C-alpha cells in the first residue's frame, strides 16, 4: 500500500525546490526577482494591515466582515496544524475536534471572570479549587494547548502504531471519548456538563486573534523548514527509507502529533474566545470534517494553501448565504432557494474539488510571488498560441 499512498502525497519539492520557495534552496540559488518580491510582500502586507486598521476603526459598520476574518484566522491555525500532521508527516488523524475541545474548555473555564462564575455554574456549582482560578486569555490558551498536547502524547503512544485508515478511525474515536468525558456528570463542577460554559470574554479587537494566529502559523512554518520538518517529510514519503536513514520513526511521529495537537488546542481556545459560549456539541465530528475540507481545498502539504483555504471556505459560506433566502422572478417563486440549499451547494463544490481537482489550490507547493508570475506567464503563452 505504501507505493499507492505516495501518489499525490509525494512532494516534488526535490526537483522544484526553487519554485516551492523552500527556505534553504532560496539561500543557495540567487533569486533574480528578489527585489521585486520583497517590494510586493511589503506592499501587500501594508495594504492588508491598512485594511484591517480601517475595519477596526469602523468596527461597528463592519462587524460581520470582522467576524468572518476572525473565524478564518482561527480555522487557519487548526488547518495548518492538521496539515502538519496529514500533509507533512503523512499521518491521517481525525481527532481535531477532540483536541480543539480540550483547548477550548481549558481556555474557557480559566478566562470566565470570577464574578460571573456563579451565574455560569448555577446548575451544578463550581469546584472550590477552580472558583478563584483565573488567567488572562493568552496564558489560558497556551495552557489549553499544553493540555491538548499532553493528552496527545498519552494517546499517541498506542495510537501511532496504527496506519492510515485505522489511525484515522482510532483518533476519531478518541475525539468522541473526549467529548463524552467533557459532558460526563462527574465533570459537572468543572465543565458544567451538558449545559456548556458561557460568559467567556471575547477579543478586544480583531488584531488579537490575527496576531495569535500569525505567531502560531509562523512557529509551525519554522518547524516544517527545520531538520525536524525534513524528517517528517521523509517519513511521509517512505517510512522504511526514513528509518534506514536513521530517523526514529516513533519519536518523530509522536513529536509531530504532539505539536499538531498543541496548536489544535490553541485554535480551540481561540474558537472559545470567538464564540464566547461553548458546549460539547460544538466539537462534533463535523468540526473535524470542516477543518479537513479546508486542508483538502488548500492542498494537502501546503501551509499557505491551508490559510487561503480557510479564508475561502469561511468567506464562501457567507457569500453563498443568498442561496438560503427565497428568490423570485416576478411573481414566480424559484422553488430551490430555501434554508439548507447553501450547504448542499457547498458540499457539492467540495466533492467536485475532491474528485476533479485533487491537488487543491496549491497542491504541495507554497505560495510565492515567483509562482504567481510564472503561472501568469504560462497562461499568457498558452493564450498566445491559440
Amino acid at each position: 500500500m505504501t507505493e499507492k499512498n505516495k501518489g499525490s502525497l509525494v512532494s516534488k519539492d526535490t526537483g522544484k525546490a526553487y519554485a516551492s520557495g523552500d527556505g534553504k534552496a532560496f539561500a543557495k540559488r540567487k533569486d533574480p526577482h528578489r527585489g521585486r518580491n520583497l517590494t510586493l510582500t511589503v506592499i501587500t502586507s501594508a495594504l492588508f494591515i491598512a485594511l484591517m486598521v480601517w475595519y477596526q476603526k469602523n468596527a461597528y459598520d463592519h462587524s460581520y466582515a470582522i467576524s468572518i476574518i476572525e473565524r478564518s484566522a482561527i480555522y487557519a491555525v487548526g488547518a495548518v496544524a492538521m496539515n502538519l500532521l496529514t500533509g507533512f508527516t503523512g499521518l491521517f488523524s481525525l481527532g481535531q475536534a477532540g483536541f480543539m475541545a480540550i483547548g477550548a474548555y481549558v481556555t474557557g473555564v480559566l478566562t470566565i471572570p470570577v464574578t460571573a462564575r456563579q451565574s455560569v455554574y448555577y446548575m451544578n456549582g463550581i469546584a472550590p479549587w477552580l472558583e478563584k482560578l483565573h488567567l488572562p486569555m493568552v496564558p489560558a490558551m497556551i495552557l489549553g494547548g499544553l493540555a491538548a498536547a499532553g493528552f496527545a502524547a498519552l494517546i499517541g503512544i498506542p495510537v501511532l502504531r496504527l496506519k492510515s485508515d485505522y489511525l484515522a478511525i482510532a483518533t476519531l474515536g478518541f475525539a468522541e471519548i473526549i467529548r463524552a468525558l467533557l459532558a460526563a456528570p462527574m465533570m459537572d463542577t468543572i465543565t458544567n456538563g451538558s449545559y456548556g460554559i458561557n460568559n467567556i470574554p471575547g477579543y478586544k479587537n480583531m488584531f488579537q486573534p490575527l496576531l495569535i494566529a500569525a505567531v502560531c502559523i509562523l512557529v509551525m512554518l519554522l518547524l516544517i523548514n527545520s531538520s525536524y520538518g525534513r524528517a517528517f517529510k521523509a517519513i511521509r514519503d517512505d517510512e522504511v527509507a526514513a528509518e534506514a536513514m536513521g530517523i526514529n520513526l516513533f519519536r518523530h511521529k509522536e513529536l509531530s502529533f504532539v505539536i499538531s495537537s498543541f496548536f489544535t488546542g490553541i485554535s480551540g481556545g481561540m474558537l472559545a474566545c470567538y464564540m464566547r459560549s461553548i458546549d460539547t456539541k460544538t466539537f462534533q465530528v463535523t468540526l473535524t470534517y470542516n477543518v479537513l475540507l479546508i486542508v483538502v481545498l488548500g492542498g494537502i502539504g501546503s501551509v499557505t494553501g491551508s490559510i487561503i483555504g480557510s479564508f475561502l471556505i469561511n468567506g464562501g459560506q457567507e457569500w453563498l448565504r443568498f442561496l438560503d433566502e427565497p428568490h423570485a422572478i416576478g411573481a414566480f417563486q424559484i422553488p430551490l432557494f430555501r434554508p439548507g440549499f447553501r450547504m448542499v451547494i457547498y458540499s457539492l463544490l467540495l466533492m467536485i474539488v475532491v474528485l476533479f481537482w485533487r491537488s487543491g489550490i496549491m497542491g504541495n507547493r507554497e505560495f510565492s510571488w515567483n509562482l504567481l508570475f510564472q503561472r501568469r506567464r504560462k497562461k499568457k503563452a498558452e493564450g498566445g498560441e491559440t
Partner: protein
Amino acid sequence: MSLATFVQHLLTGISLGGAYALIAIGYTMVYGILRLINFAHGDIFMMSGYFMIFAIASLPWFIAVPIALIGTVILGILIEKTAYKPLRSAPRMSVMISAIGVAYLLENLATYLFTAIPMAYPEIPGLKRIFTFGEITTSLVTILTPVLTIILTIVLLQLINRTKIGMAMRAVSKDTEAARLMGIKVDSTISMTFLIGSLLAGIGALLYFTDRMTVYPYSGALPGLKCFVAAVLGGIGSIPGAVIGGFIIGICETFIVAFGYSTFSDAFTFMLLIIILLVRPTGLFGEAAADKV
C-alpha cells in the same frame, strides 16, 4: 437487576445488535474489497429511512418496502460509481476524503430536503405487535430482527462461498490485479458488493427505525461509526465476525444505558475499538494481514 429486567434488556440489546450487524456487513464487505472505510454507509442507512417514509405515504407497505430497498441500493451504487470509481488508482487518503465528502453531502442534502426536524417513521402493520411472556413484554420487531439477521447472514455466506459472483468477490478482495487478469469484471464485482451492502443497510434501517420511530439527517452518522467498530471488532473482511461484533456492541450498549451511564455508551464503543486495535488488530475472526497495522 432482576432476571426479568435482565432478559428484557438482553432482548433489546440483541435486537439493536441485529440492526448493527446488518450495517456492519456492508462496512466489512466494502473494506474487504476496496480497503476503504465507507463513511457514507451510515448515511445511506439514514436515507433509506427517509425513502421508507415517503414510499409508505402513498403506497401499501408490501409495495413500499421493496421500493425503499431498491432506492437504497440505487443510492449505494450511484455513490460508488460517482465518488469512488474515479479514484480507484488514487491514494487511499483521497478515497477516504471522498467518502467523508459524500457523508457530508448526504447529511446536508437530507437537511435541505427533509429539514432537520425528526420525522416520524411509519409503522408497518404487525411489526409493533406486543407479546407478553410473564413479566417480559416485547414486540414482534425485537424478536424478528435477530432472526432475520441470522437468516440473511446464512444466505449471504452461501452466496459468497457457493456462487460464481461470490467467488469473484473473494478473488477481488484477495488481489484485485490478479483477479482482473483472470478475467473477472472487477468493476461490476465491486458494484455487486455495494448492492449487497446497501440492501442489508436498507433492511437494517427498516428494523432499526421501526424500533426508534424517528428519522433525522444525522441519525445515520453515529450508528454508522459504531457499525464500523463492530466490523473491526469481528475482524474486517469477515462476515460472521461483523455479525458477532454487531451483536456484542448492541448488547453492551444497551446494558451500559440500562446501568445509567448513557453518556458513556458512545465512548465505550470507541474504547472497545482502540483496545481491539491494540490487542488484536485482526479482530476476533479476521485473517492476519501484514498491511493492516
